[in-house]
């Protein structure tokens, strides 16, 4: 029997961590993810977990401690946001290249500057090329479910990569909502025991971690790392199937909402997907064939599957909650357009930058985007593809 609960997104992650009971958690507080190590350190001092909690002096040190602990053979976790993630940058690449399946809760917040504590996706979008698997979460339930699945995905022998589980800062991290928890023993059984193939504390098979990798091997190691990312797609789906058996909650690479017969659609990440679903229901009542594709897995990018799911759409808006400064659109837009190229060329695709720095995204904003898509459909004119919604100009 699932446990009916109400928790904030941060509490949900902290509870998932407690149930997983990792060997080491190393973290440095930063809004809006601070509550995760805060709640978790209470579990540590209450004896609810056996975890070694390392209160470090910076996020660079947090990720370094995670790398050291995971390399030693421990299951390791952390949480951060925005500039904390930025300060980990150097070590993010070292974690993934060293093939250390650290699990991170990334509570999305705008990356300074200007200084802002509120939500957008500029932090994790910037880390999209760091070799970490990225899972995104619409609500507290998904943050909890993704975090539990992340452990299995990252540690799988075909993958062995770190995973970051993202959710929207404040919007879900600080909002109390209903969710269903699993019993402790079910989580424990689902994640299983961490059994790394190679680890530093294995005296029978000594290894070096992080040595100099010169031109005669570096390229092969990169190739293997890239293959691990390619492999992870199937593992993500396998783990999701097993999780569905356990919980009844279905997860895939992305979620389709009323997409199969849609004429106009948006592609979106995280909490605004929920708002968009309510808008779609209203539009459907008026006979407008609107749909949604919500990204769950952004790295690896499921290009083929996305193109297949979108190929019948006539007008599409890709919603980016991050400004890419490429002068042609946001990061999700670029990836979606590349995915469609040569496979579904007839679709009229526009990009909307939205919700930066915590600008509240109202149902009206989403409705506006669908109205614009209908205009494109009616007039056949694409117009400027690099657009904004909800900004004063």
């Amino acid at each position: 029997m699932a446990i009916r609960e109400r928790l904030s997104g941060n509490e949900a992650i902290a509870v998932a961590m407690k149930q997983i009971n990792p060997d080491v958690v190393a973290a440095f507080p930063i809004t809006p993810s601070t509550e995760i190590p805060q709640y978790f350190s209470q579990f540590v001092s209450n004896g609810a977990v056996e975890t070694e909690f390392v209160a470090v002096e910076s996020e660079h040190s947090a990720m370094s401690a995670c790398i050291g602990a995971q390399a030693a053979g421990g299951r390791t976790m952390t949480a951060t946001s925005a500039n904390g993630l930025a300060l980990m940058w150097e070590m993010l690449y070292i974690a993934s290249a060293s093939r250390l399946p650290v699990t991170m809760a990334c509570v999305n917040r705008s990356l300074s500057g200007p200084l802002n504590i509120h939500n957008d996706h500029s932090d994790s979008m910037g880390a999209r090329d760091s070799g970490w698997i990225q899972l995104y979460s619409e609500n507290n339930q998904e943050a909890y479910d993704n975090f539990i699945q992340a452990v299995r995905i990252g540690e799988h022998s075909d993958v062995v990569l770190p995973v970051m589980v993202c959710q929207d800062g404040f919007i879900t991290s600080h909002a109390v909502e209903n969710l269903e928890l699993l019993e402790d023993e079910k989580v424990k059984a689902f994640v299983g025991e961490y059994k790394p193939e190679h680890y530093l504390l294995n005296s029978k098979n000594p290894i070096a971690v992080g040595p100099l990798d010169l031109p005669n091997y570096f390229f092969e190691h990169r190739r293997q790392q890239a293959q691990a990312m390619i492999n992870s797609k199937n593992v993500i789906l396998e783990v999701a199937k097993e999780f569905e058996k356990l919980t009844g909650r279905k997860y895939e690479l992305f979620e389709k909402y009323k997409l199969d017969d849609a004429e106009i659609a948006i592609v979106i990440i995280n909490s605004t997907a929920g708002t968009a679903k309510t808008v779609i229901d209203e539009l459907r009542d008026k006979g407008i064939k609107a749909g949604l594709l919500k990204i769950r897995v952004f790295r690896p990018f499921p290009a083929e599957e996305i193109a297949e799911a979108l190929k019948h759409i006539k007008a599409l808006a890709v919603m980016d909650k991050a400004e890419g400064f490429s002068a042609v659109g946001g990061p999700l837009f670029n990836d979606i357009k590349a995915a469609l190229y040569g496979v579904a060329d007839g679709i009229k695709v526009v990009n909307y930058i939205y919700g930066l720095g915590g600008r509240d995204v109202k149902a009206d904003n989403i409705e506006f985007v669908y109205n614009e898509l209908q205009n494109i459909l009616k007039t056949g004119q694409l117009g400027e593809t690099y657009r904004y919604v909800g900004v004063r100009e």
Partner: protein
Amino acid sequence: MGKLVEIRWHGRGGQGAKTAALLLADAAFNTGKYIQGFPEYGPERMGAPITAYNRISDDKIRIHSNIYEPDYVVVVDETLLTSIDVTSGLKESGAIIINTEKAPEDVKKHLKGYKGKVCTVDARKISEEALGKYFPNTPMLGAVVKVSKVMGEEEFLNDAKGSFAHKFATKPEVIEGNMKAIERAMQEVKGI
């Protein structure tokens, strides 16, 4: 589809509007509802205006935005009436509940012609008499349950008692006072 009730709280930092929103969410959750309880975060300072929100529904809640057309508005500090547009978007089928010693007709002039129900409750007096201190949030919680009927009164009172027992485990002496404050607010709220 079940009815979605949306509530917006206006208070000042330190008065417990956020806590009240979370307590209301908790109470509604315990009666089997789907809930959201969330504050609008800003630069947090004692005395600065703050906003918090509740959504309460029989169905799963998917929307993730602030509330612009609430069914109910709770004003925890009456000095906000002249500085914040508290009735902005408030549905006329709903109500505004204000912490003031004044009667509903005496505060209407600040409400920009709001045509819905106006309720007042003297949360200061109730709090000071029941708790010996000024904590307006628990009486306001009682008033909003009474006015909005988002849950049964008995159900709510039983649940509140349980929540307080948990929340104030280290200071059980305040439980009775808080319960009294809620009950009195439910009886004394004017304009229903």
